[in-house]
């Protein structure tokens, strides 16, 4: 591989940021400031060396973006030299992710959510007010720039905003007293939710003084209820304390797993009837069994924590409120599938979840619960967190692999399936956060006791993310089989309910006269809708549905990776048609509805992955079930 770079050189800060991640460059071949005589007598690099380090590309891009706020040509050159990556490819990766920028911009970027739940709770007014105070989105003011953002996963406190400030990592200066403000910008993030324009301007001016976020438990209205299973620790234990975790039954499931052996663990999970909670509802035990049986190695475990479905925030609450549970569950899953390395692919917009998980991983390592000899059982396992960088598509299981490997986060075509060829081309089990956490009660109480909750084919409990026009939005845990009405009664439904969006942007709408639909996989399927990832977005009649549909179409158009034609162009045509009929009904809308049906059918049939295949679901259900343009 003969790589060619431009003449642009990195600044000291950019060089430091990359070298802090990768260590000092060993020679001039890898981007050391000077080439020594010795460098001229040997050559290195080549395709093999490049392949080994390619997975550091996204972390390196993050490192520069976190330090400077954007990635210059010189910084990109330096990263490419360090990792033996072609600059065109690195540019292609950097421009794929919305949190990264290859154009100069201020160090402070304010992301204001305008997605479904926030739109239903007045984000448009916040944006209008903000435009008056700070100027139009995308124009720098006060050393910051604000932009509209897809769902930030803070729907229970909508409307929400997230401020990210580039600078030095506070951890770099940790041994010293608190960094002096004069020392320059310090990397930080601030969540402002519920957001108001004046509050956002204050946060922009002094991000470090922004009000502290409420604890994760604030998102769990049922907190403290003894009937809770997955949420039982949230609000009752300190998420930063491993001792708290252990004193409330933590790590008994892992001990039990070691007694059962890997095959025994898989048998329990199969018997419990656990199916994936990420939306596809695939039997977890079968996935683990198929991975464990592969002769090729090593095996990998990937936790899908890229929760980006508009209206979904349950995984964030779990990770922020009970991080050790995920660490323990992943250790059990890794043991079952024969993996020595696990990855948490965490969405980039969750700084607090990152901090909590990182803390939990370090705690577990110190106490021998991760590392070369877990619990003295001779099993070596460790977990690494990989941050996404703003791409909904990276929640697709094969797009995660590409993203971790340092490629553009485009989905791969299946077959081959991940259990056969997944991360780094090796057998991989991919599970969602909620799915993994379910493994703990299965092992603590036994498969039979677990399966006694719920219905025959939907066993256990389910987390629901209730947002929109309800009195008590938040994450609710209910046994499978409860009806939508029961769930809404807990959350306090609006007086004049217009519709409920079930399953998120890829899901479907339910009418107020359909609230008795049982919340199970089979029940929602029979009713022609889906549970998806557990989104329950409640809309009253103050909401203009055509605008919500437009927002859904805009979301899919924005988030399409662009790889296949039905999705890349189809999502654009869908949005155009919805724009044309936004204020029309009846015959005036009929032609465009027919057009959308045709395009929608082709997207569903011919797209490579679930994004394109589901991009028409919610709009179709709004037309057919709610009669929105009638």
């Amino acid at each position, binding site marked *: *591989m*003969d*790589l*060619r770079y*431009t003449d642009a050189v990195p600044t000291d800060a950019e060089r430091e940021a990359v070298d802090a991640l990768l260590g000092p460059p060993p020679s001039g071949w890898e981007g050391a400031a000077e080439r020594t005589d010795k460098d001229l007598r040997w050559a290195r690099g080549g*395709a093999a060396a490049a392949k080994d380090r390619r997975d550091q590309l996204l972390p390196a891009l993050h490192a520069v973006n976190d330090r400077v706020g954007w990635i210059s*040509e010189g910084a*990109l050159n330096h990263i490419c030299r360090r990792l033996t990556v*072609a*600059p*065109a*490819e*690195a*540019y*292609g990766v950097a*421009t*794929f992710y919305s949190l990264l920028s*290859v154009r100069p911009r201020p160090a402070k970027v304010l992301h204001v959510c305008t997605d479904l739940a926030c739109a239903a709770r007045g984000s448009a007014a916040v944006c209008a007010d903000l435009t008056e105070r700070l100027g139009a989105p995308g124009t720098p003011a006060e050393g910051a720039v604000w932009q509209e953002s897809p769902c930030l996963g803070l729907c229970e406190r909508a409307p929400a905003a997230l401020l990210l400030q580039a600078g030095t990592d506070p951890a770099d200066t940790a041994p010293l007293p608190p960094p002096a403000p004069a020392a320059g910008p310090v990397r930080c993030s601030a969540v402002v939710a519920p957001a108001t324009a004046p509050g956002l301007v204050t946060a922009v001016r002094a991000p470090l003084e922004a009000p502290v976020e409420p604890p994760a438990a604030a998102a769990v209205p049922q907190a403290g209820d003894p009937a809770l299973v997955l949420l039982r620790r949230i609000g009752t234990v300190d998420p930063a304390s491993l001792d708290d975790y252990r004193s409330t039954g933590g790590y008994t499931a892992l001990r039990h797993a070691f007694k059962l052996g890997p095959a025994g663990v898989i048998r329990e999970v199969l018997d419990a009837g656990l199916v994936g909670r990420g939306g596809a509802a695939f039997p977890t035990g079968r996935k683990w069994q198929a991975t464990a049986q592969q002769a090729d190695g090593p095996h990998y475990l990937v936790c899908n924590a890229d929760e980006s479905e508009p209206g979904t925030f349950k995984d964030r609450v779990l990770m922020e409120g009970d991080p050790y549970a995920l660490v323990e569950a992943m250790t059990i899953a890794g043991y079952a599938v024969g993996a020595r390395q696990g990855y948490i692919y965490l969405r980039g917009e969750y700084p607090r979840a990152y901090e909590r998980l990182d803390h939990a991983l370090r705690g577990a390592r110190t106490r021998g619960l991760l590392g070369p000899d877990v619990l003295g059982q001779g099993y070596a396992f460790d977990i690494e967190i990989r941050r996404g960088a703003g*791409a909904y598509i990276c929640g697709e299981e094969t797009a995660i692999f590409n993203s971790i490997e340092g490629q*553009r986060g485009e989905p791969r*075509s299946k077959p081959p399936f991940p259990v056969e060829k997944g991360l780094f081309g090796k057998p991989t089990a991919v599970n969602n956060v909620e799915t993994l956490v379910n493994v703990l009660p299965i092992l603590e109480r036994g498969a039979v006791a677990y399966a006694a909750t719920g219905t025959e084919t939907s066993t256990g409990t389910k987390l629901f993310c209730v947002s929109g026009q309800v009195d008590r939005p938040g994450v609710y845990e209910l046994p499978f089989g409860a009806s939508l009405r029961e769930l809404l009664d807990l959350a306090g439904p609006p007086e004049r309910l217009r519709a409920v969006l079930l399953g998120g942007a890829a899901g479907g709408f339910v009418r107020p006269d359909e609230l008795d639909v049982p919340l199970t996989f089979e029940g929602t399927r029979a009713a022609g809708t889906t549970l998806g990832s557990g989104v329950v977005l409640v809309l009253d009649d103050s909401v203009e549905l055509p605008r919500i549909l437009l927002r859904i179409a805009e979301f899919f*158009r*924005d*988030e*399409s*990776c*662009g*790889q*296949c*034609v*039905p999705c*890349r*162009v*189809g*999502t*654009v*045509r869908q949005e*155009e048609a919805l724009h*044309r009929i936004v204020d029309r009904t009846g015959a005036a809308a009929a032609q465009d509805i027919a*057009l959308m049906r*045709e*395009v929608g*059918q*082709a997207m*569903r*049939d*011919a*797209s*490579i992955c679930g994004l394109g*295949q589901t991009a028409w679901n919610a709009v179709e259900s709004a037309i057919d079930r709610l009669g929105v343009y009638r």
Partner: protein
Amino acid sequence: MTAVPLQPPRRLVTFTLDGEETRVPEGSTILDACRSAGRDVPTLCQGDTLTPKNACRVCVVEVEGARTLAPACSRRAEPGMTVRTDTERARHSRKVVLELLASSTDLSTTPRAAEWIEEYEAEPDRFGTDAARVDEQPKVDNDLYVRDYDKCILCYKCVDACGEQWQNTFAIAVSGRGFDARISTEHDAALPDSACVFCGNCIEVCPTGALSFSSEFGMRAAGTWDETAQTRTTTVCAYCGVGCNVTLHVQDNEIVKVTSPHDNPVTHGNLCIKGRFGFQHVQNRD
């Protein structure tokens, strides 16, 4: 004629193609089976020398029991599979995909596009006059070839040919995403400032004419490009001792472009800058 080395024998897979029992060597794709059975399935992004990327989705077929349609170019035939290539569902998707492509890009130089648009009764105009288009101006930044991304359907073939599948130069990649995704050099630099080595292998694989010789681009602009008046002569490149085959395309006694036979077991259609672009001396008549 080019010598084609024999492949090791492969087991046969039996499956049903459009109601007929079909046997193909193990590892064959559904498209291979269709072609050997003489059935026409439209393809745009599929290339005979590259691993299919299955990005365009015009070759989709119906596989019994599958929730979605499958791309014939990359789905391998499996024993017992039942495939239908010409169902209403498959035809509908092909029609819409052709409409989506033709309404957003310029397919005027894409071989067979017009024929398929007619066959599938596609109406690209029905998305209205305001339908978003790629809308790119041709990039003319060197004397050898032109990039006209208004004609690009993002099939990834040039990226694969420039990258690890053939050339290992990695001068271009896909940047951006969604409808804004484009084939691009690093920081969108001009080709002479990029890593490009001007082998022209990307032009060789481009299925739409988005990449073309400057000679062809100029003649098309002048209205003098006439493929029916061209002769093709395959000969051996005289620049070095490797002996690559070059096919000279000649119109009015002038070489207008150079390609290379894809079935050549040494080059598979690939050339270097000299074989591809170094033909001026042949017609230097001073």
